[in-house]
């Protein structure tokens, strides 16, 4: 199954037989006080540097989130999407929990975007799926509902099934559906990452769907986070993860992903790996 996203001039394919798709997470003001203040003052200059960093780091797509409290998020997100598209040809993952913001971002987007995200709650699916259909976008869906974030793979799979049926019913092709198998901090529960890996495996086996998750979550609250993230990625990829939202500025993690691509036969004959090596040698 191939999920194809694009900008005006560039296409990216996500699939189990494709090199892993890295979605840069940095364009997000959560926990960045200075960035928030600037955005509130309508100053988008931080975005320029963030885009450059994520592109230089080797991202395939960029996540754009403008969730700043007490701002006009739809207007801000639309503006940011346009700005990012003027800076790079990488396709965008439009990230908001505000429906109007998703709508505004999608309306100005050139190409086929990925929408981040929707849960398995009926109310959210009612609101978001029509947008996905209207703009012919792809959607990232989280297997949690109004009651809880299930911890066990089998409970997550019940909600995945609900989401898949609903997406089919709306007439949206399953290629346009990505599931987030939910990466939770291993520091909060030793079983968390095992549950994520099990969920990834089951989604791949049962549906063959593409997936993406917030990879940095796994190392929350622990020291040397980059090393943990770098160890997690190849495990998740071996189970069937096809994409992740992560920080493109961390070479350890990006390199671990590219190495796993090669080891899993997704970078045939090491073409990308060797090209990268030559480029870094020349630099």
């Amino acid at each position, binding site marked *: 199954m191939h999920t194809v996203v694009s900008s005006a001039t560039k296409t990216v394919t996500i699939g189990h037989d494709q090199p892993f798709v890295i979605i840069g997470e940095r364009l997000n003001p959560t926990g960045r006080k200075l960035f928030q203040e600037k955005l509130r003052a309508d100053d988008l200059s931080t975005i320029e540097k963030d885009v450059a960093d994520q592109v230089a780091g080797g991202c395939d797509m960029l996540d754009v989130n403008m*969730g700043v*409290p007490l701002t006009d998020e739809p207007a801000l997100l639309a503006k940011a999407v346009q700005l990012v598209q003027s800076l790079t040809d990488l396709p965008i993952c439009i990230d908001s*929990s505000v429906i109007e913001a998703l709508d505004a971002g999608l309306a100005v987007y050139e190409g086929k975007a990925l929408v981040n995200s929707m849960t398995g709650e009926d109310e959210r699916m009612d609101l978001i799926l029509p947008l996905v259909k209207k703009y012919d976008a792809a959607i990232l869906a989280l297997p949690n509902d109004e009651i*809880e974030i299930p911890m066990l793979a089998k409970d997550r799979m019940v909600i995945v099934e609900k989401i898949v049926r609903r997406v089919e019913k709306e007439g949206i092709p399953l290629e346009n559906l990505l599931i987030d198998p939910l990466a939770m901090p291993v*520091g*909060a529960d030793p079983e968390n990452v095992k549950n994520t890996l099990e969920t990834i495996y089951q989604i791949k086996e049962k549906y063959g769907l593409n997936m993406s998750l917030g990879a940095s979550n796994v190392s929350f*609250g*622990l*020291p040397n986070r980059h090393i943990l993230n770098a160890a997690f990625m190849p495990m998740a990829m071996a189970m069937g993860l096809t994409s992740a939202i992560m920080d493109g500025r961390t070479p350890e993690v990006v390199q671990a992903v590219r190495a796993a691509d090669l080891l899993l036969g997704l970078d045939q004959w090491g073409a990308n790996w060797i090209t990268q090596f030559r480029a870094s040698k020349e630099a």
Partner: protein
Amino acid sequence: MTPDEILTELYERTMEGNAPRVLELTKMGLELDMTPDSILFEALIPSLEEVGARFERGDYFVPEMLIAGRAMSGALDVLRPLLADTGAETVGTFLMGTVKGDVHDIGKNLVNIMLEGAGFQVIDLGVQTPPEKFIDAIKEHQPDVVGMSAFLTTTMPMFKVNIHEITKAGMRDDVIIMVGGAPVTQEYADVVGADGYAADASTAVRKAKELIAIKRAK
């Protein structure tokens, strides 16, 4: 072991999160006629305070905080009924819940642990807490502080709704209201009319104590 040795080892083992040993030492202490008060205030609470201080400095990490909290909880299960008998005053009662529409609880649970560690009685309403549930629980438990947690920009507006409902129910002056969660800022807390905000678990404990002290001084 002498009572002093027990206190010293309790302090150390709690900080290491050695739950079985902490429970054992607590029982040994009680058999030696040590008071539940002294076990709590001279060993367990100082230990968790040190955990919090180290966490704030970046010397301690989330799993260490969790297991230290768990070790203390085990001892508290034994001590609590005895403390109730002696009528010892608690630091305060903290009512906690993730707001309606939101199912995230990792951060909230960390705050609960640090609050318990500081001697608070914590009543956790869990996730998806509607305004009426906060109000019923305020009536029932008469907490010093009501804490609300939200992880999403779409659920943060529930702070304002909850505070409005608590005000309407005539209980706004009875409680201190604190808010927190990944996207929450001090500015946002001010706008919704909360009394306090903290960016992490140990700061939340300090802030809660400060606010209670101010209120009790009035």
